[in-house]
């Protein structure tokens, strides 16, 4: 078995070999610029780009004319939020999002705040989900844009996009959804969802890095201001020569996702349950985020009374993410887990496992054995664990903070 075992599919996925095979001809013989109208090199590339546009649109129930190519979800999110906020700035300057959003959204909003916009960041419930009444009460007459992620990158919970869409549409508010972590994991039907803008990434769904897309609804028409100028490509929404090979890769990746999602999700869920049952044989293991309203690929757990950095060091034979950023001097745990109300200790001892297309049962079993052994060893070494075994209430201890 090749070590370390990759269990970090929410960070990025390997490119599916079928995707690579589709991409390569567009680096070799089919190198033409899809904007070249006067020869077959250009026509071949343009046709490939349009096929990919149909494949992306098909996965999410959109019209191909509603898909705009970008360099990735971060650019899509910037274009959607800045573009919609700026276009509607004479109508209002209030924007609403959520504390557990990805930094691509939060930092974009911070940037808009520096330019005269006002943003409200909603709290989530302890299960990571938005309370719709809290959302409703945050909306004002001058609210122009609401941005919510469909699937959270750290804890995998799935927000109720359909209900949020209804709330926004009846108030005439532009609704943007960050779906970077959702494609191929949950069904998305933009024919039914009242979503105006949706951001996609290729590399979270077995496509290449460096390419993404933004859905911009045509009916009812949503208008945004372009952020990148220079040639008016993509109907003026996003200038710049299209990266044909990347786009072809994204199209093929989304085609595979559409065809294999049902089978793959069931397989991944079985592996996730196997992992969860294995580590739950230990006491004091907490699942972070709602377990039901969640993509099956994600398992975020905290191991109480074990410090996060030493845990990461102990399980170096598996590649996972930690909710702890204590490699820096700041000791800042994950803002997402803190927003769920977790104590610093639990947030520090959290691990995000994310499972994917190439994960095997053998790999999951290896991970379970490794974690059981290492967590057991670290707890044997932990004075906190010893005190809890002796019945001491750690909250009542007077610690000498340093």
């Amino acid at each position, binding site marked *: 078995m090749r070590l370390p075992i990759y269990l970090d599919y929410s960070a990025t996925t390997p490119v599916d070999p079928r995707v690579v095979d589709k991409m390569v001809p567009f680096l070799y013989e089919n190198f033409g610029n899809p904007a070249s109208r006067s020869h077959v090199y250009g026509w071949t590339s343009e046709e490939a780009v349009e096929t990919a546009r149909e494949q992306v649109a098909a996965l999410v129930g959109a019209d191909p004319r509603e898909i705009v190519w970008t360099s990735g979800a971060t650019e899509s999110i910037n274009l959607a939020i800045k573009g919609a906020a700026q276009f509607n700035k004479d109508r209002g300057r209030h924007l609403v999002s959520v504390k557990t959003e990805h930094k691509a959204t939060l930092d974009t909003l911070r940037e808009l705040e520096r330019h005269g916009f006002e943003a409200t960041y909603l709290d989530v419930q302890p299960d990571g989900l938005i309370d719709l009444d809290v959302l409703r009460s945050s909306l004002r007459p001058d609210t122009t844009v609401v941005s919510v992620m469909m699937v959270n990158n750290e804890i995998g919970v799935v927000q109720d996009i359909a209900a949020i869409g209804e709330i926004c549409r009846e108030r005439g508010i532009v609704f943007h959804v960050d779906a970077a972590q959702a494609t191929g994991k949950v069904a998305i039907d933009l024919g039914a969802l009242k979503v105006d803008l949706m951001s996609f990434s290729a590399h979270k769904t077995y496509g290449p890095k460096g390419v993404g897309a933004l859905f911009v609804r045509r009916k009812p028409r949503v208008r945004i201001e372009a952020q990148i100028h220079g040639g008016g490509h993509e109907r003026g929404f996003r200038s710049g020569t299209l990266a044909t090979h990347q786009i072809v890769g994204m199209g093929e990746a989304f085609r595979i996702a559409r065809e294999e999602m049902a089978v793959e999700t069931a397989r991944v869920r079985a592996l996730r349950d196997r992992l969860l049952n294995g580590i739950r044989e230990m006491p004091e293991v907490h699942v972070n985020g709602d377990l039901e309203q969640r993509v099956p690929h994600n398992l975020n757990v905290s191991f109480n009374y074990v410090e*996060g950095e030493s845990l990461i060091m102990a399980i170096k034979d598996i590649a996972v993410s930690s909710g702890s950023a204590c490699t820096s001097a700041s000791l800042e745990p994950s803002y997402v887990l803190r927003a769920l109300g977790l104590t610093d200790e639990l947030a520090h001892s959290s691990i995000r496992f994310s499972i994917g297309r190439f994960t095997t049962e053998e790999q999951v079993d290896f991970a379970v054995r490794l974690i059981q052994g290492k967590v057991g060893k670290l707890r044997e*070494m932990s*004075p906190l664990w010893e005190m809890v075994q002796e019945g001491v209430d750690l909250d009542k201890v007077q610690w000498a*903070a*340093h």
Partner: protein
Amino acid sequence: MAYSEKVIDHYENPRNVGSLDKNDLSVGTGMVGAPACGDVMKLQIRVNAEGVIEDARFKTYGCGSAIASSSLVTEWVKGRTLDEAMSIRNSQIAEELALPPVKIHCSILAEDAIKAAVADYRAKHEAVGVADVAASEARAA
């Protein structure tokens, strides 16, 4: 995370993990740090009649550098008198383990743990000493 080989060695093969009976009069216990800060160290020393530390045990909740710092000091305090143990400085621990600047606090915590363990041992004996005197005075009266 660029850990030195010595940190990794102590982390993977920690010396003297465990506990001594904290109620034993020959044992001094020091507990320093706080869970919210990400480090808690418990250091215990067993002191013989000559005032020499003959055994030491630790348990640590913390990062690899914190575990290595406490493991190292259990080795260092053994065979030393209480005053000699008290002279161990965090800079020596940091130097031995080649700790990076962001991990210096781990060595400070380990130094504090030694001081706390020695102080606990001494406090126990002062209390016992007073009690012994009182008891012998009572018998003499």
